[in-house]
């Protein structure tokens, strides 16, 4: 009997050891290795555009280039005109508000606030030509700007304040002959500079992404897979995959890490288990704004100070703007730990005309989710906080007119008069202005998705599994091993342990003393 036991036991142990040993070895053929393999070869253009006679000529207007493109790429402009890049609006269902068309066209943010009345300047980043005011014709395919996305010469720039038209210095013929798949510079020219400067808005999208090191971005680093934006943000009929919750609400059309990395990317089961409640980004983007600072706080209420009647700017020692007469005061941050929230993929928005409660921060885009929500996971976010103008009479946010195109039009950036800016801005959005304004705190949520770090830099266990103010300290109401405990059990447990120890020591001491006495007798 005994022999059988021991042989079985030994067999069991050997079997166990072998299975665990086999479980994790050989990195070849792992999903990650296969992904890396797939990115070794880069797509090459299938044709040489510089040979086409249609493009070998001088173009006087950018619309002529579009016409040349369309002459071969039949139907593509129509696709573009269905895209959010073109329409700056899409129909979304917003919980509690119903089905609404929302997008850059009509949503407010807490940076430069909104485009209405300011199109001439803001719409430099529209993928069209001449979206200078609300009367822009969204049905004219000749106004589609093919070049801003497809220029591979690196020389195409849109004119400042030009409502999307190219800078007059651009050699359109050269650009037209050098078109191809969008490069980082095409996307980055707009998406890295949102909010009026590098990295102002996102914190994880900035000019460092043009040539990032591996530490900054494992995906885009040239010493890594050297991926470009459109490798993940793929497009079907010019409809890009991915969107931002600053301008959209529904849980759809998202770029998911899992679509390449699968839902079980780790060899360790304990880590895979985390993926039910923790988004990949939460551990794999330990810090954002890795290279250049991002704006964290914008106080519009201090705007308008003048020196000798003139607007001025103040910079801190690192050369970052901390005050601008036209915009107010800023707080920036670099190498930041994100804040963390529960997020289920759907969001709400402050919509123009919604009444607000000035006693607490207005959420410009509330991201939904909670621990109990089966679809929610913990996500990293940048929260941008601001003090921005609102109508104290009607109790809603004001769309101010900031950009001035002609004297006396009320544009705050040349007149520094909030009354006028509010009056003129509200006319653009067809809402009454009471004549009284104040400043209210607002918050805007920016999920942090880019600048994924090498795995060695991923957030370590004890950054959350700790009792001392870990990364998830602000998310309460659920149990994290190592963070949570029952204080009752803690008191009783240590109490019983201490009593037991004391009893043993006491008992033993008495025994020793007594036995000594006995020997002495």
């Amino acid at each position, binding site marked *: 009997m005994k022999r059988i036991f021991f042989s079985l036991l030994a067999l069991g142990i050997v079997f166990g050891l072998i299975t665990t040993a086999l479980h994790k070895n050989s990195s070849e053929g792992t999903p990650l290795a296969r992904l890396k393999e797939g990115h070794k070869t880069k797509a090459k253009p299938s044709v040489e555009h510089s040979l086409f006679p249609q493009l070998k000529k001088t173009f006087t207007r950018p619309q002529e280039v579009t016409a040349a493109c369309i002459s071969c790429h039949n139907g593509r402009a129509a696709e573009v005109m269905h895209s959010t890049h073109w329409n700056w609006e899409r129909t979304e269902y917003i919980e509690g508000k119903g089905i609404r068309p929302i997008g850059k066209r009509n949503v407010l943010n807490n940076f430069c606030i909104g485009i209405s009345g300011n199109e001439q300047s803001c719409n430099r980043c529209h993928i069209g030509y001449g979206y200078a005011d609300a009367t822009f014709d969204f049905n004219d395919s000749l106004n589609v700007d093919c070049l801003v996305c497809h220029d591979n010469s690196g020389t195409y720039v849109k004119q400042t304040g030009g409502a999307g038209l190219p800078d007059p210095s651009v050699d359109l013929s050269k650009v037209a002959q050098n078109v191809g798949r969008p490069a980082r510079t095409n996307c980055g020219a707009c998406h890295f500079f949102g909010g009026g400067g590098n990295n102002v808005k996102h914190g994880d999208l900035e000019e460092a992404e043009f040539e990032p090191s591996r530490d900054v971005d494992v995906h885009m680093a040239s010493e890594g897979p050297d991926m470009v934006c459109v490798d993940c943000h793929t497009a079907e009929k010019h409809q890009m995959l991915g969107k931002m919750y600053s301008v959209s609400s529904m849980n759809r059309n998202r770029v998911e890490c899992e679509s390449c990395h699968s839902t079980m990317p780790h060899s360790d089961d*304990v880590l895979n288990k985390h993926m039910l409640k923790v988004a990949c980004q939460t551990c794999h983007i330990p810090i954002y704004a890795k290279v250049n600072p991002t704006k964290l706080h914008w106080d519009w209420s201090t705007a308008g100070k003048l020196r000798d009647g003139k607007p001025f700017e103040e910079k801190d020692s690192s050369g970052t703007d901390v005050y601008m007469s036209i915009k107010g005061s800023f707080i920036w941050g670099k190498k930041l730990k994100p804040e963390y929230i529960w997020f289920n993929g759907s969001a709400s928005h402050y919509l123009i005309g919604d009444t607000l409660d000035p006693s607490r921060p207005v959420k410009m885009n509330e991201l939904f989710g909670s621990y109990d929500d*089966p679809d929610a996971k913990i996500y990293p976010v940048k929260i941008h906080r601001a003090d921005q103008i609102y109508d104290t009479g009607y109790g809603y946010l004001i769309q101010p007119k900031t950009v001035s195109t002609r004297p006396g039009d009320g544009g705050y950036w040349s007149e520094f008069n909030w009354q006028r800016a509010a009056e003129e801005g509200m006319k653009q959005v067809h809402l009454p202005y009471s004549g009284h304004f104040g400043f209210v705190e607002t918050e805007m949520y920016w999920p942090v998705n880019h600048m994924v770090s090498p795995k060695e830099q991923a957030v370590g266990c004890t950054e959350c599994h700790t009792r001392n103010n870990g990364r998830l300290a602000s998310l309460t109401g659920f149990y994290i091993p190592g963070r949570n405990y029952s204080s009752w059990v803690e008191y009783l447990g240590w109490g019983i342990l201490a009593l037991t120890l004391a009893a043993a020591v006491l008992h033993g001491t008495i025994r020793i003393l007594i036995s000594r006495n006995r020997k002495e007798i």
Partner: protein
Amino acid sequence: MKKEYVYRAFERFWHWTQAALIIFLGVTGFEIHGSIRFFGFDQAVRYHNFAAISFLVLIVFAIFWHFTTGEWRQYVPTWENLRAQAEYYVFGIFRNVPHPTRKTSLSKLNPLQKLVYAGLKVLVIPIMVVSGLLYMFYRYPQRYEVLSLNVGGLEIIAVLHTIGAFLLASFFIAHLYLVTTGRTVTSNLKAMVTGYEELEAGPVEKKAQPVLHEPVLSE
């Protein structure tokens, strides 16, 4: 006095492996719990999970052994002499009075031991195993596995597991001390190492629990 074979090979193997595993599980467990730092959290989790599986394997063998040898009867609690045994530890031991119960290979546990060990076997260890396995395979009931088992969160599981861990730790301290209260300070320890112990000779007056099979004394 007569040298008797009290703890057989498997029993000793089981005892020491179990001791090592429980100490190890305790150290790694309390590291996960946040009370101590030793291996580092990630290693503690990995080691704890591995040791837990080993512990389960050992438990399966131990259960098998208890039943096939009938040794489980040693652990059936009894009122008989329970009070006397308690009084012995509180008073008698200091006056050098002999143990109220006699240890034989057929009845090696005193009534207090029977009670405590039975408690461990039917209560604390099962709590640890069940809560531990639930902890390990907890998958957020709203999703995928364990759908029917609608536990709202880890909390209940983890707190039960922690209570059990504290009980085991206290037992461990008491046990270490009580080891020294045998016939001599080291006689219990020696017995569990070698299997042999000097026991009082002569017929047993107190009725020992009948044992199904005659234990194999030498092999």
